[in-house]
Protein backbone atom coordinates (compact mmCIF):
# COMPACT_ATOMS: atom_id res chain seq x y z
CA UNK A 1 0.00 0.00 0.00
CA UNK A 2 1.09 3.56 -0.37
CA UNK A 3 0.17 7.20 -0.27
CA UNK A 4 -3.38 8.26 -0.88
CA UNK A 5 -3.70 11.81 0.41
CA UNK A 6 -7.19 12.79 1.41
CA UNK A 7 -8.28 16.09 -0.12
CA UNK A 8 -11.07 17.83 1.72
CA UNK A 9 -13.06 20.09 -0.56
CA UNK A 10 -13.98 23.58 0.59
CA UNK A 11 -17.74 24.12 0.09
CA UNK A 12 -17.76 26.97 -2.48
CA UNK A 13 -21.00 28.62 -1.35
CA UNK A 14 -21.28 27.88 2.34
CA UNK A 15 -17.70 28.14 3.53
CA UNK A 16 -18.35 31.33 5.49
CA UNK A 17 -20.55 29.47 7.95
CA UNK A 18 -17.51 27.56 9.13
CA UNK A 19 -16.28 30.26 11.47
CA UNK A 20 -17.68 33.48 13.01
CA UNK A 21 -14.77 35.49 11.64
CA UNK A 22 -15.74 34.49 8.12
CA UNK A 23 -19.30 35.69 8.80
CA UNK A 24 -17.92 38.98 10.05
CA UNK A 25 -15.91 39.25 6.84
CA UNK A 26 -18.93 38.45 4.68
CA UNK A 27 -21.06 41.00 6.50
CA UNK A 28 -18.42 43.61 5.75
CA UNK A 29 -18.45 42.62 2.08
CA UNK A 30 -22.26 42.66 1.98
CA UNK A 31 -22.33 46.25 3.23
CA UNK A 32 -20.60 47.30 0.03
CA UNK A 33 -23.82 46.41 -1.84
CA UNK A 34 -25.54 49.18 0.10
CA UNK A 35 -22.69 51.57 -0.53
CA UNK A 36 -22.95 50.80 -4.25
CA UNK A 37 -26.75 51.06 -4.28
CA UNK A 38 -26.64 54.45 -2.60
CA UNK A 39 -24.19 55.66 -5.23
CA UNK A 40 -26.69 54.60 -7.91
CA UNK A 41 -29.37 56.50 -6.01
CA UNK A 42 -27.25 59.66 -6.08
CA UNK A 43 -26.67 59.31 -9.82
CA UNK A 44 -30.42 58.93 -10.38
CA UNK A 45 -30.92 62.07 -8.27
CA UNK A 46 -28.42 64.00 -10.39
CA UNK A 47 -30.12 62.84 -13.53
CA UNK A 48 -33.53 63.97 -12.29
CA UNK A 49 -32.06 67.34 -11.33
CA UNK A 50 -30.83 67.83 -14.86
CA UNK A 51 -34.22 66.80 -16.28
CA UNK A 52 -36.10 69.77 -14.86
CA UNK A 53 -37.93 70.76 -11.71
CA UNK A 54 -40.82 68.33 -12.04
CA UNK A 55 -38.51 65.35 -12.25
CA UNK A 56 -36.50 66.61 -9.28
CA UNK A 57 -39.69 67.04 -7.20
CA UNK A 58 -40.76 63.51 -8.15
CA UNK A 59 -37.37 62.24 -7.05
CA UNK A 60 -37.62 64.03 -3.71
CA UNK A 61 -41.11 62.60 -3.22
CA UNK A 62 -39.84 59.14 -3.91
CA UNK A 63 -37.10 59.63 -1.34
CA UNK A 64 -39.75 60.34 1.29
CA UNK A 65 -41.59 57.07 0.73
CA UNK A 66 -41.42 54.64 3.68
CA UNK A 67 -39.58 52.06 1.59
CA UNK A 68 -37.00 54.63 0.59
CA UNK A 69 -36.54 55.79 4.16
CA UNK A 70 -36.09 52.20 5.26
CA UNK A 71 -33.50 51.68 2.53
CA UNK A 72 -31.63 54.87 3.46
CA UNK A 73 -31.63 53.87 7.09
CA UNK A 74 -30.17 50.49 6.25
CA UNK A 75 -27.68 52.07 3.87
CA UNK A 76 -26.55 54.46 6.62
CA UNK A 77 -25.92 51.62 9.03
CA UNK A 78 -24.15 49.59 6.36
CA UNK A 79 -21.99 52.51 5.28
CA UNK A 80 -21.00 53.35 8.82
CA UNK A 81 -20.10 49.71 9.45
CA UNK A 82 -18.19 49.56 6.19
CA UNK A 83 -16.31 52.75 6.97
CA UNK A 84 -15.50 51.58 10.48
CA UNK A 85 -14.03 48.30 9.25
CA UNK A 86 -11.82 50.20 6.85
CA UNK A 87 -10.71 52.74 9.41
CA UNK A 88 -9.83 49.91 11.72
CA UNK A 89 -7.86 48.34 8.90
CA UNK A 90 -5.76 51.43 8.24
CA UNK A 91 -3.46 50.59 11.12
CA UNK A 92 -2.43 47.45 9.27
CA UNK A 93 -2.07 49.03 5.84
CA UNK A 94 -0.35 52.21 6.98
CA UNK A 95 1.88 51.52 9.97
CA UNK A 96 3.78 54.59 11.11
CA UNK A 97 7.27 54.16 12.52
CA UNK A 98 8.90 56.90 14.55
CA UNK A 99 12.47 55.97 15.43
CA UNK A 100 12.49 52.36 16.56
CA UNK A 101 8.89 52.33 17.72
CA UNK A 102 5.66 52.06 15.84
CA UNK A 103 2.79 54.43 16.53
CA UNK A 104 0.02 52.51 18.30
CA UNK A 105 -2.57 51.18 15.88
CA UNK A 106 -5.53 52.80 17.60
CA UNK A 107 -3.94 56.21 17.13
CA UNK A 108 -3.74 55.66 13.38
CA UNK A 109 -7.31 54.41 13.22
CA UNK A 110 -8.41 57.11 15.63
CA UNK A 111 -6.90 59.81 13.40
CA UNK A 112 -9.08 58.55 10.57
CA UNK A 113 -12.20 58.76 12.72
CA UNK A 114 -11.28 62.32 13.68
CA UNK A 115 -10.71 63.25 10.04
CA UNK A 116 -14.03 61.66 9.18
CA UNK A 117 -15.85 63.66 11.84
CA UNK A 118 -14.20 66.95 10.77
CA UNK A 119 -15.05 66.36 7.10
CA UNK A 120 -18.62 65.41 7.95
CA UNK A 121 -19.09 68.60 9.97
CA UNK A 122 -17.60 70.56 7.05
CA UNK A 123 -20.06 69.01 4.61
CA UNK A 124 -22.95 69.72 6.95
CA UNK A 125 -21.84 73.37 7.26
CA UNK A 126 -21.67 73.71 3.47
CA UNK A 127 -25.11 72.10 3.29
CA UNK A 128 -26.33 74.81 5.63
CA UNK A 129 -27.38 72.55 8.48
CA UNK A 130 -25.81 74.83 11.08
Amino acid at each position, binding site marked *: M*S*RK*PLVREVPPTTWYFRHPRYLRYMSREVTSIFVGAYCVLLVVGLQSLSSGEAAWEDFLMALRSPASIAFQFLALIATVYHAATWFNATQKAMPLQI*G*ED*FVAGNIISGAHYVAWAVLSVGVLIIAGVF
Partner: protein
Amino acid sequence: MSNSLPRSQPPLAAPNGGAVASLGRPGGNNERLVQLEVLRYNPDTDTEAHFQHYEVMCQEEWVVLDALNKIKADIDPTLNYRWSCHMAVCGSCGMMINGEPKLSCHAFLRSYEGVIRVEPLTHFPVERDLVTAPDDFMEKLKRVKPYLIPKETKAVSEGEYKQTPAQLMKFRQYSMCINCMLCYAACPEYGLTPSFIGPAALTLAHRYNIDSRDGGRKERQEVVATHEGVWECTFVGACSEVCPAHVDPASALQQMKITSSIDWIVEHLIPGGKS
Protein backbone atom coordinates in the same frame (compact mmCIF):
# COMPACT_ATOMS: atom_id res chain seq x y z
CA MET B 1 7.17 12.20 15.89
CA SER B 2 9.45 10.74 18.47
CA ASN B 3 9.39 9.94 22.11
CA SER B 4 6.23 11.37 23.30
CA LEU B 5 6.10 11.38 27.06
CA PRO B 6 4.62 14.69 28.08
CA ARG B 7 7.41 16.72 29.49
CA SER B 8 5.62 17.55 32.68
CA GLN B 9 7.67 14.86 34.29
CA PRO B 10 7.84 13.97 37.93
CA PRO B 11 10.55 16.22 39.30
CA LEU B 12 14.21 15.45 39.04
CA ALA B 13 15.50 12.55 41.04
CA ALA B 14 18.51 13.31 43.14
CA PRO B 15 21.19 12.95 40.51
CA ASN B 16 23.44 10.73 42.60
CA GLY B 17 20.94 7.97 42.27
CA GLY B 18 19.67 8.49 45.78
CA ALA B 19 16.20 9.24 46.98
CA VAL B 20 13.83 11.34 44.95
CA ALA B 21 13.75 14.96 45.99
CA SER B 22 10.84 16.01 48.14
CA LEU B 23 7.97 17.04 45.97
CA GLY B 24 5.45 19.80 46.12
CA ARG B 25 2.93 17.88 44.12
CA PRO B 26 3.17 14.17 43.59
CA GLY B 27 0.40 14.46 41.03
CA GLY B 28 -3.27 13.84 41.39
CA ASN B 29 -4.48 17.05 42.93
CA ASN B 30 -4.98 18.93 39.69
CA GLU B 31 -5.57 16.13 37.27
CA ARG B 32 -8.48 16.07 34.94
CA LEU B 33 -10.05 13.53 32.62
CA VAL B 34 -9.86 15.02 29.15
CA GLN B 35 -11.97 13.81 26.24
CA LEU B 36 -10.75 14.23 22.72
CA GLU B 37 -12.31 13.53 19.36
CA VAL B 38 -9.50 13.03 16.91
CA LEU B 39 -9.87 12.75 13.15
CA ARG B 40 -8.33 9.51 11.95
CA TYR B 41 -7.41 8.55 8.43
CA ASN B 42 -5.31 5.59 7.37
CA PRO B 43 -4.75 5.49 3.59
CA ASP B 44 -3.95 1.76 3.77
CA THR B 45 -7.40 0.88 5.08
CA ASP B 46 -9.73 3.89 4.92
CA THR B 47 -11.50 5.63 2.08
CA GLU B 48 -12.76 8.37 4.37
CA ALA B 49 -11.73 9.98 7.61
CA HIS B 50 -13.59 9.34 10.85
CA PHE B 51 -13.47 10.62 14.41
CA GLN B 52 -12.09 8.52 17.22
CA HIS B 53 -12.92 9.23 20.83
CA TYR B 54 -10.24 9.14 23.54
CA GLU B 55 -10.36 9.75 27.27
CA VAL B 56 -7.09 10.47 28.98
CA MET B 57 -6.05 11.69 32.42
CA CYS B 58 -4.11 14.95 32.13
CA GLN B 59 -2.60 17.63 34.30
CA GLU B 60 -4.65 20.79 34.28
CA GLU B 61 -1.67 22.82 33.04
CA TRP B 62 -0.99 20.60 30.05
CA VAL B 63 -1.49 21.50 26.43
CA VAL B 64 -3.41 19.48 23.84
CA LEU B 65 -0.12 18.08 22.54
CA ASP B 66 0.63 16.60 25.97
CA ALA B 67 -2.74 14.85 25.87
CA LEU B 68 -1.99 13.45 22.41
CA ASN B 69 1.43 12.31 23.57
CA LYS B 70 -0.10 10.48 26.49
CA ILE B 71 -2.63 8.83 24.19
CA LYS B 72 0.14 7.72 21.87
CA ALA B 73 2.34 6.38 24.69
CA ASP B 74 -0.32 4.68 26.79
CA ILE B 75 -3.45 4.10 24.73
CA ASP B 76 -2.97 4.07 20.98
CA PRO B 77 0.48 3.95 19.36
CA THR B 78 -1.13 4.14 15.92
CA LEU B 79 -2.15 7.79 16.29
CA ASN B 80 0.03 10.01 14.10
CA TYR B 81 0.93 13.69 14.25
CA ARG B 82 4.02 15.87 14.04
CA TRP B 83 5.66 17.68 16.90
CA SER B 84 9.05 18.62 18.24
CA CYS B 85 9.95 21.69 20.27
CA HIS B 86 6.98 22.04 22.64
CA MET B 87 7.66 25.77 22.85
CA ALA B 88 5.83 27.21 19.83
CA VAL B 89 8.89 27.89 17.74
CA CYS B 90 9.43 24.89 15.42
CA GLY B 91 5.99 25.11 13.83
CA SER B 92 5.48 21.34 13.50
CA CYS B 93 2.32 20.74 15.48
CA GLY B 94 -0.31 22.88 13.78
CA MET B 95 -3.78 21.34 13.83
CA MET B 96 -7.41 22.36 14.02
CA ILE B 97 -8.56 22.41 17.62
CA ASN B 98 -12.28 22.96 17.97
CA GLY B 99 -12.23 24.34 14.44
CA GLU B 100 -9.47 26.85 15.08
CA PRO B 101 -5.95 26.52 13.63
CA LYS B 102 -3.61 26.18 16.61
CA LEU B 103 -0.20 24.93 17.57
CA SER B 104 -1.16 22.03 19.78
CA CYS B 105 1.82 22.77 22.04
CA HIS B 106 0.30 26.17 22.68
CA ALA B 107 -3.35 25.12 23.09
CA PHE B 108 -3.89 24.90 26.82
CA LEU B 109 -6.34 22.36 28.16
CA ARG B 110 -7.54 24.94 30.67
CA SER B 111 -9.00 26.91 27.75
CA TYR B 112 -11.34 24.11 26.74
CA GLU B 113 -14.41 22.51 28.21
CA GLY B 114 -16.12 19.32 27.16
CA VAL B 115 -14.91 17.21 24.26
CA ILE B 116 -11.97 18.74 22.39
CA ARG B 117 -12.17 18.15 18.66
CA VAL B 118 -8.79 17.72 16.97
CA GLU B 119 -8.43 17.66 13.18
CA PRO B 120 -5.59 18.05 10.69
CA LEU B 121 -4.91 21.56 9.39
CA THR B 122 -7.61 22.41 6.92
CA HIS B 123 -6.85 23.31 3.26
CA PHE B 124 -4.00 20.78 3.11
CA PRO B 125 -4.27 17.19 1.90
CA VAL B 126 -4.21 14.66 4.75
CA GLU B 127 -1.44 12.08 4.54
CA ARG B 128 -2.57 10.29 7.63
CA ASP B 129 -4.45 11.19 10.83
CA LEU B 130 -3.25 14.68 11.81
CA VAL B 131 -0.38 14.70 9.34
CA THR B 132 -0.91 16.93 6.31
CA ALA B 133 1.15 17.43 3.15
CA PRO B 134 2.73 20.90 3.10
CA ASP B 135 4.23 20.55 -0.41
CA ASP B 136 2.19 23.41 -1.84
CA PHE B 137 3.37 25.83 0.83
CA MET B 138 6.99 24.78 0.42
CA GLU B 139 6.79 25.35 -3.33
CA LYS B 140 5.24 28.78 -2.90
CA LEU B 141 7.76 29.82 -0.31
CA LYS B 142 10.52 29.18 -2.82
CA ARG B 143 8.75 31.18 -5.53
CA VAL B 144 8.80 34.46 -3.60
CA LYS B 145 12.61 34.38 -3.27
CA PRO B 146 12.68 34.72 0.51
CA TYR B 147 16.36 35.50 0.80
CA LEU B 148 18.44 38.61 0.75
CA ILE B 149 19.17 39.94 -2.74
CA PRO B 150 21.76 42.55 -1.79
CA LYS B 151 21.28 46.14 -2.86
CA GLU B 152 25.04 46.49 -3.07
CA THR B 153 27.49 43.65 -3.03
CA LYS B 154 30.07 43.67 -0.31
CA ALA B 155 32.66 41.07 0.62
CA VAL B 156 32.34 39.43 4.01
CA SER B 157 35.85 40.61 4.79
CA GLU B 158 34.62 44.20 4.52
CA GLY B 159 32.39 43.70 7.53
CA GLU B 160 28.67 43.95 8.11
CA TYR B 161 26.09 45.96 6.22
CA LYS B 162 25.21 48.77 8.58
CA GLN B 163 21.63 48.69 9.76
CA THR B 164 20.21 50.94 12.45
CA PRO B 165 17.92 49.56 15.16
CA ALA B 166 15.07 51.50 13.51
CA GLN B 167 15.76 49.86 10.14
CA LEU B 168 15.83 46.49 11.89
CA MET B 169 12.56 47.11 13.68
CA LYS B 170 10.90 48.00 10.39
CA PHE B 171 10.98 44.38 9.22
CA ARG B 172 11.69 42.38 12.37
CA GLN B 173 8.08 41.48 13.06
CA TYR B 174 7.76 39.93 9.61
CA SER B 175 10.91 37.86 10.10
CA MET B 176 9.28 36.01 12.99
CA CYS B 177 7.25 33.64 10.79
CA ILE B 178 7.75 30.04 11.92
CA ASN B 179 6.17 28.55 8.75
CA CYS B 180 3.57 26.71 10.79
CA MET B 181 0.97 27.27 8.06
CA LEU B 182 -1.83 28.10 10.50
CA CYS B 183 -2.52 31.20 8.38
CA TYR B 184 -3.09 29.03 5.30
CA ALA B 185 -5.56 26.94 7.26
CA ALA B 186 -7.34 30.10 8.40
CA CYS B 187 -7.37 31.85 5.01
CA PRO B 188 -10.63 31.17 3.14
CA GLU B 189 -9.13 32.68 0.03
CA TYR B 190 -6.46 29.98 -0.02
CA GLY B 191 -9.11 27.33 0.49
CA LEU B 192 -11.15 28.57 -2.45
CA THR B 193 -8.28 29.51 -4.75
CA PRO B 194 -5.38 27.17 -4.11
CA SER B 195 -3.14 29.04 -6.55
CA PHE B 196 -3.01 31.96 -4.06
CA ILE B 197 0.58 32.35 -2.87
CA GLY B 198 -0.83 32.89 0.59
CA PRO B 199 -0.11 34.87 3.75
CA ALA B 200 3.16 33.44 5.11
CA ALA B 201 5.08 33.30 1.84
CA LEU B 202 4.01 36.79 0.79
CA THR B 203 4.85 38.14 4.22
CA LEU B 204 8.37 36.76 3.92
CA ALA B 205 8.70 38.48 0.54
CA HIS B 206 7.66 41.70 2.28
CA ARG B 207 10.14 41.04 5.08
CA TYR B 208 13.00 41.10 2.58
CA ASN B 209 11.51 43.91 0.48
CA ILE B 210 11.62 46.31 3.42
CA ASP B 211 15.03 45.19 4.72
CA SER B 212 17.43 48.11 4.26
CA ARG B 213 20.06 45.73 2.86
CA ASP B 214 17.83 44.27 0.17
CA GLY B 215 17.39 45.33 -3.43
CA GLY B 216 15.30 42.45 -4.71
CA ARG B 217 11.80 43.87 -4.59
CA LYS B 218 11.50 44.20 -8.34
CA GLU B 219 12.36 40.53 -8.85
CA ARG B 220 9.84 39.46 -6.24
CA GLN B 221 7.11 41.67 -7.72
CA GLU B 222 6.86 39.27 -10.64
CA VAL B 223 5.28 36.80 -8.24
CA VAL B 224 3.94 39.13 -5.58
CA ALA B 225 2.06 41.77 -7.60
CA THR B 226 -0.13 39.32 -9.47
CA HIS B 227 -3.57 37.80 -9.21
CA GLU B 228 -2.03 34.82 -7.45
CA GLY B 229 -0.10 37.20 -5.25
CA VAL B 230 -1.33 40.01 -3.06
CA TRP B 231 -4.29 40.80 -5.31
CA GLU B 232 -5.92 37.49 -4.43
CA CYS B 233 -6.08 38.66 -0.82
CA THR B 234 -9.45 40.17 0.11
CA PHE B 235 -8.32 41.15 3.58
CA VAL B 236 -10.31 38.71 5.66
CA GLY B 237 -7.62 39.16 8.27
CA ALA B 238 -7.91 35.62 9.63
CA CYS B 239 -4.19 35.02 9.06
CA SER B 240 -3.24 37.64 11.61
CA GLU B 241 -5.82 36.45 14.11
CA VAL B 242 -4.43 32.92 14.22
CA CYS B 243 -0.70 33.67 13.89
CA PRO B 244 1.08 32.22 16.95
CA ALA B 245 4.18 34.35 16.33
CA HIS B 246 2.36 37.72 16.14
CA VAL B 247 3.61 38.30 12.62
CA ASP B 248 0.47 40.00 11.29
CA PRO B 249 0.57 38.81 7.67
CA ALA B 250 -2.56 40.83 6.85
CA SER B 251 -0.67 44.05 7.45
CA ALA B 252 2.22 42.92 5.25
CA LEU B 253 -0.13 42.09 2.39
CA GLN B 254 -2.01 45.36 2.58
CA GLN B 255 1.27 47.28 2.55
CA MET B 256 2.35 45.32 -0.49
CA LYS B 257 -0.90 46.20 -2.22
CA ILE B 258 -0.19 49.88 -1.61
CA THR B 259 3.37 49.71 -2.96
CA SER B 260 2.20 47.64 -5.92
CA SER B 261 -0.47 50.23 -6.68
CA ILE B 262 2.08 53.01 -6.52
CA ASP B 263 4.26 51.01 -8.92
CA TRP B 264 1.33 50.79 -11.33
CA ILE B 265 0.54 54.48 -11.09
CA VAL B 266 4.14 55.45 -11.65
CA GLU B 267 4.40 53.13 -14.62
CA HIS B 268 1.08 53.88 -16.33
CA LEU B 269 -0.06 57.34 -15.32
CA ILE B 270 3.09 59.38 -14.91
CA PRO B 271 4.63 60.32 -18.27
CA GLY B 272 8.05 58.74 -18.56
CA GLY B 273 7.51 56.93 -15.26
CA LYS B 274 9.02 53.50 -14.94
CA SER B 275 8.85 51.75 -11.64
